[in-house]
């Protein structure tokens, strides 16, 4: 580890590793600097220009692109900074559809946070506004919605797709006031190479990318994704006896805060109305509902007649460690055979 650098932000002494930007050093020390296009897991690009700070002896600078230096003295807010910031901010939200009440991101939106800090003049904005909100809602993906009327062109989704997912499904398209985030050929997202990992959706700072059917969970539990062998840590949200959400557990070393489409959006099977809810016993050719007592009595009686090599258990790689342990113990100790396998070979 190289030596930490010491600098001063708003009168507070802050230490940071060389190469850290002023913005991230400040945020790590609970000093808020307004910012929109910066995300701690992505490279900094400096597009939104609301993160301006003043460094002693220099012109106002974007803090997300400026690395810390020994002895730097940084001011995050003064009259000049606030004025420039306000103008930059107004340009960003010129075409923003300010319908916060009906937005899925309401109260978790970074633009709202920013607006509270910077303050904007709605009359001025309305006077400058383009006449209508141009983009139709893109609801072509089964799991998330794209409402570009909310987009602030921070480019976080573009960088997420490139740097985290490793694909380049979306990019800035068109120019000037027409600029928007799009898919090659301005098609709906469903016709792109998007694999619906949802990584961009979780990182979009505003309501432009939101999960479909978003329901606030009443409680959340950390567990493990039931699908592939990566074993991603997931935090599952539930409400009213149903699973309603799944987000990556940022502390899980297996997935480091990422998920794929299955772990993020694929848990609906738990709530399926087709789940088996009671034992079934075949009577006169048909499977009919039965009680546990009846089912267990029948199985106990029957299996008693097939002990030894005429019996086999097929266990499951989808069940837990404890489940599998009991299955093999039962097969070996009670049924008296080593005929047990599962589909790991497949």
């Amino acid at each position, binding site marked *: 580890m190289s030596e930490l650098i010491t600098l001063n932000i708003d009168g507070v002494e802050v230490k940071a590793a060389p190469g850290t930007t002023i913005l991230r050093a400040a945020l790590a020390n609970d000093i808020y600097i307004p910012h929109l296009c910066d995300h701690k897991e992505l490279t900094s690009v400096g597009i939104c220009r609301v993160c301006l700070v003043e460094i002693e002896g220099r012109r106002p600078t974007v803090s997300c692109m400026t690395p810390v230096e020994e002895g730097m003295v940084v001011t995050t807010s003064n009259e000049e900074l606030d004025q420039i910031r306000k103008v930059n901010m107004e340009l960003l939200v010129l075409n923003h559809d300010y319908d916060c009440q009906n937005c899925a991101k309401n109260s978790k939106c970074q633009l709202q946070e920013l607006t509270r800090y910077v303050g904007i003049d709605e009359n001025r904005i309305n006077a400058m506004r383009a006449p209508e909100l141009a983009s139709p809602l893109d609801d072509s993906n089964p799991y998330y919605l794209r409402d570009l009327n909310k987009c602030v062109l921070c480019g976080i989704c573009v960088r997420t797709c490139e740097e985290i997912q490793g694909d380049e499904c979306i990019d800035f398209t068109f120019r000037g006031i027409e600029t928007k985030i799009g898919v090659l050929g301005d098609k709906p997202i469903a016709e792109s190479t998007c694999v619906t990992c949802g990584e961009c959706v979780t990182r979009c700072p505003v309501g432009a990318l939101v999960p479909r059917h978003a329901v606030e969970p009443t409680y959340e539990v950390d567990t493990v994704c039931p699908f*592939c062998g990566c074993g991603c840590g997931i935090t599952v949200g539930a409400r009213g006896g149903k699973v309603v959400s799944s987000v990556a557990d940022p502390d899980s070393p297996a997935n480091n805060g990422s998920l794929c489409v299955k772990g993020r959006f694929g848990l609906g099977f738990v709530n399926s109305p087709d789940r088996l809810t009671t034992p079934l016993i075949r009577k006169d050719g048909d499977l009919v509902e039965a009680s546990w007592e009846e089912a267990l009595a029948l199985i106990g009686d029957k299996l008693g007649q097939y002990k030894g090599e005429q019996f086999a258990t097929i266990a499951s790689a989808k069940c837990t460690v404890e489940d599998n342990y009991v299955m093999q113990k039962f097969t070996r100790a009670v049924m008296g055979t080593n005929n047990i396998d599962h589909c790991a070979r497949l």
Partner: protein
Amino acid sequence: MAGLATTLGSGAMTNSIAEIGDAACIMAIGTSTTEAHPIIGYQVKKAVRQGAKLIVANPQEVPLARFADLFLPLKPGSDVALLMGMARIILEEGLHDQQYIEERCENLDQFKQSLEEYTLQFVSDITGLPGEDIVNAARMYAENNPSSILYCMGITQHSHGTDNVIAISNLALITGNLGRTSGGVNPLRGQNNVQGACDMGSLPNVFTGYQKVTDEAARQKFEKAWGASLSGEPGLTHTEIFDAAHRGEIKAIYLIGENPVLTEANAAHSLEAMKKLEFFVVQDIFLNETAALADVVLPAASFAEKNGTAVNTERRVQRVRKVLDPVGDAKPDWWIVSAIANEMGAEGFAYNSAAEIFKEITSLTPSYAGITYERLEEGGLQWPCPTEDHPGTPILHTEKFNTPSGKGKLMPIKYRPSEDCCDFDFPLILTTERNLYQFHSTMTRYSEGLDELSGGEHIMINPADAEKLGVADGDLVEVNSRRGKLQVKAKITRRSQEGVASLSFHFAECPTNLLTSAALDPVAKTPETKVCAIRINKA
């Protein structure tokens, strides 16, 4: 994973997922990582962005190939030839790690002898790859260290899957890539708890922690703990169980959480076998195609409705926590099995919780001995973790291998062609693969939206083959193999190389495995679902 057990003494991923991103070279063979293991796919792409070399060897042009420095579209079933050919080049050009081989490996001379067969010409003929690409692959893998090999079902699902795995470990051994950070030999496990099911002895030849049933001392230990006398005769494997049922020797099966009607190689045969059973119990969360054949069906709790642990592909034991109460009368699998044991009057199944069971497991399993539910609250632990102050083991074999001599064994391998060969009647090769949005069985089909994204089942055919067959994109075709036939829509794509077509096996409407071969790997007994000769006609 019998192959790795022979050469290294352990059949699990040697390194951790998080290390892959820092490898200097990655060879992904027989895996469509971005689709089957998306999170590991992110790591691979991260490594590439950081300048790592990527070699992708796969009969199909999988999405990861787009990121590769070298894409090797080898003929299905020719992996051994490629890997041994690379080993020969590495030794010939002196790119191996001499000191590592001297200190940590054994059997070099015999291994070298077996390489004689693998001349560049021979390897090029078998794999269908240009010699230059094979040489480049060998150099790229050997010259950029650490180098990590990732593989999946594309490697193990062959009648010579064990040979494939041994060939991979040979390559890693001669280049000194075992026991070092970001190197290793890394089998990617398909399902959420394949590793845990193996660790627990849901296998015919071992108790928990790979303690052999044939080992007298191990058996006595379990007999004492369980209060029962145990058989020292290894049991039947998955495929052998269905064969024995077909012959009428197995009369009763208790099948949990699987759907062999969809997933079993040569499914028609297994279907007949299941119909012959005198008593068939199926336990699942859905009434799937297999459960519909059962005499008794038991409703299981889903992962979200029970407590326990699962082990991921990097040997990390992690807590599964209950989110909801089970639907209706569904119960956790351990509860159901214990209830049956109790019904039959057995001792030792009076469990009240998964935690109790886990304690019993750790008391009988040395590699798990240091793991407790309390410790798992702090995050997962990678086995071996022999004591409560042991931090777990992210990288295996850092000092020695788990073989009797402690050395990594270089193994000679002879090339054997796949069992199911093409001929005049069946001129194309079929391989099976997995779709990102679908998963081995029925679970994803009940999650609204995933089905929509996957776009249904297609057979993927190369444009040149499609032209010869007069098949257009979207046409319904009939696919015949020596074992069965099915109808499916055609998708014309360069993802498939000429002469090879590919299908996934997720949908009940199109049980791919009706077509595939059940020729077994003689050691691992893995059915050959990856290679099957077929004929395609317009339906």
